[in-house]
Each structure stands twice: as structure tokens, then as C-alpha cells.
């Protein structure tokens, strides 16, 4: 049962944090929460389809289908995050520091429909990959009711812990000022985009499309991926203690648009205030 708890917690942790951050964003921008229902439905449906067609996907493209699908899902989530970052970036500079919630009528959040669409997409596709693995894992115990029961109870505890951590994080963030939260959200989007793009590189390395090289550095003696902190960072921001040069290039390719968006909005803000 402990194995099931750890496996499912690892799978749901990243999705729980993404859902939490986007729900707090929704609250801060006075956007109704009903989009999360569509996002969860999209996640459950797409993950179930991925699990149902797991054999066909694995065999596709000469046995590389799983990696291509994963890379496509990571890429789509990165694009959603870049659009979300481009919409919230002006708010980092325009929002008064004492305001806790912004009204939906605020001129700056006019493209909120695009924001909701991207939030649905990001949550749905993040869940697709992670939950598909849970369906496959639990499906492996269908032949043995005792093992199935143990896996289901372990899974429920794992989901419960992940959800609890999400709820705690929500209440820690919802009471800070809108401006402070949006800054945290932007940093979170940068870290997550970087981590996800390293995962894309890893998929391509795994199928031999890219060639591995000697790792650029090795921080496993400081934070090992086997440690609880390493596991946490791996689940949340795709921490890798010994990345390849190509992974670092992918990291910066994903992070650069976000940094440019930030610089551009800072420049515009300075120009209008002169």
C-alpha cells in the first residue's frame, strides 16, 4: 500500500500544484471557479483514453509513440503557460500593492476568456499524462481483488495527501496581496515551463532522436532525486541533478519567452510613467 501511496502522490503532486495556483489566480482576478469542472473532466477523459489505447500508442512510430505523446502534452502545457504569463504580466506592474482581489471589470484582464481557456487546457493536459499512469497502474491489479483493494486504498490516500497539500497552499496564497501572488505565479510559471521543456528533451533523448552527452553538472550530492526534497522538486519543477547540455538548451528556449514578456512589460510600464 505504501508503494501505491508514494506512486500516486508523485503523479498527482504536480497537477495539484498547477490546479491550486490557477484556482488562486482565478480568485484573485474574480473569475468564477466553474472552469475547473471542465478542466477536471477533460483530464479524466483524456487520461482514460491514453490508458485505453496505451498498447497502440506504445507501438506507434516504431515504438516511440509514448514519448511523442508525452512531448506533445508537455509542449501544449508550456504554450498554455506562456499565454497565461503574457496575460498576467501587465498586472505585475499595474496592480497596487495593497489590493487583495482585482475586479473582473479591470481593463487589464479583458482577455480573461483566453485565460480561462488556457487554464482548462493546462490542467486537463497535465492531468492526462499523470492520471493515465494511475489508470494503467491500478488496471494491473484487476486480476487480484486483494491487491486491487490495497492499491485503491493507497491511491485514495495518495490523492488525499496531494489534495490536502493543494488546499493548504491555496489558503496560504489566497490571503496575500494580488500583486504578491501574481509575482509568485509568474516565477512558478517560469520554473514549470523550464522543467517541462527539460522533460521534452528527456523524451527525445530516450528514443534516440537526441544524443546524450556527459552531464553539465551533478548536484546529486546536494539534492539527490532519491531524497524527499529531490522527489518533491522533481515532481514540482522537473528537477534533474545531472542534466545534459541539450536539456539546458531546451530549458532556456522555454524560459526565454517568459523573460522577454516580463522585460517588455517592464519597459512599457517605464515608458508610460515618464
Amino acid at each position, binding site marked *: 500500500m505504501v508503494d501505491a501511496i508514494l506512486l500516486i502522490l508523485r503523479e498527482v503532486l504536480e497537477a495539484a500544484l498547477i490546479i491550486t495556483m490557477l484556482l488562486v489566480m482565478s480568485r484573485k482576478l474574480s473569475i468564477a471557479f466553474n472552469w475547473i469542472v471542465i478542466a477536471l473532466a477533460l483530464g479524466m477523459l483524456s487520461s482514460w483514453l491514453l490508458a485505453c489505447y496505451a498498447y497502440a500508442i*506504445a507501438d506507434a512510430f516504431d*515504438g516511440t509513440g*509514448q514519448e511523442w505523446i508525452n512531448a506533445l502534452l508537455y509542449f501544449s502545457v508550456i504554450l498554455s503557460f506562456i499565454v497565461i504569463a503574457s496575460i498576467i504580466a501587465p498586472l505585475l506592474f499595474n496592480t497596487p500593492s495593497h489590493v487583495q482581489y482585482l475586479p473582473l471589470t479591470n481593463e487589464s484582464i479583458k482577455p480573461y476568456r483566453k485565460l480561462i481557456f488556457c487554464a482548462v487546457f493546462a490542467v486537463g493536459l497535465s492531468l492526462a499524462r499523470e492520471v493515465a499512469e494511475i489508470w494503467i497502474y491500478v488496471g494491473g491489479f484487476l486480476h487480484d481483488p486483494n491487491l486491487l483493494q490495497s492499491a485503491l486504498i493507497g491511491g485514495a490516500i495518495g490523492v488525499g495527501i496531494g489534495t490536502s497539500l493543494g488546499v493548504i497552499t491555496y489558503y496560504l496564497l489566497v490571503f496575500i496581496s494580488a500583486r504578491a501572488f501574481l509575482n509568485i505565479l509568474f516565477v512558478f510559471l517560469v520554473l514549470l515551463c523550464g522543467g517541462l521543456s527539460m522533460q521534452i528533451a528527456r523524451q527525445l533523448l*530516450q*528514443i*534516440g532522436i537526441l*544524443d*546524450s552527452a556527459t552531464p553539465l553538472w551533478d548536484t546529486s550530492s546536494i539534492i539527490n532525486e532519491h531524497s524527499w526534497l529531490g522527489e518533491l522538486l522533481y515532481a514540482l519543477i522537473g528537477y534533474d541533478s545531472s542534466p545534459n547540455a*541539450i536539456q539546458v538548451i531546451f530549458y532556456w528556449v522555454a524560459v526565454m519567452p517568459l523573460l522577454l514578456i516580463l522585460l517588455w512589460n517592464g519597459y512599457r510600464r517605464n515608458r508610460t510613467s515618464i
Partner: protein
Amino acid sequence: MIFRKFILILLCMSPAISAATVPEFTIEIHDHLFFPSTLVVPADTKVKLIIINKDPTPEEFESYELNREKVIMGGARAVIFIGPLKSGDYPFFGEFNPKTAQGVIRAQH
């Protein structure tokens, strides 16, 4: 200099070129155990691992040291490229059965 690096990356992205001389090794999964549990591969060489899951249940091949992770459905096979690796031991495990499914890739000259 940048152009040369760009060409090098493009060349690295050609699977037809890079897969032509890659040595292949097979690992099988029986009863949630890896066979062989210690696989010796040449150091400083890109290697193609073929993992055959002979169990009816799925397994996930995972290794932090190798930076690899792949679900292998019951009765299916999967291909994973690893390396070039420096000489040393690189543990891997089955995430769905971590207590029993343990193994090591040993890279040596």
C-alpha cells in the same frame, strides 16, 4: 561557431545516422523481477535497451541516474536509448513493483 553547433544538433537529431551502429541489449521482466538484474554495457557508447515485459501486468522502467522513465504494458516490449555513460553503476527499478524489480546497468571499458 554557433552555426557549427547548430549543424551538430541537427546531426544529433537524425535517428537514422545515430541508430545505425548502436549496440543492443535486452532486459526481460518476469514475476516483477529484471533479468539480468545487472547488465554490463560498454562505457562511453550510446546503447539501445530492449525491455520485454513477460508479465501480464504493466511495469514502469525508471532510473534517476540514467534519467529515464517508461511504462511497459503487460506482454509488450519497449525501446530506450541510454548513454554514452561514464564507467560506473546506474541503478534502475520498476516503479510499479519497486520492492522486487531492481537492477543495475554497469558501464565499463
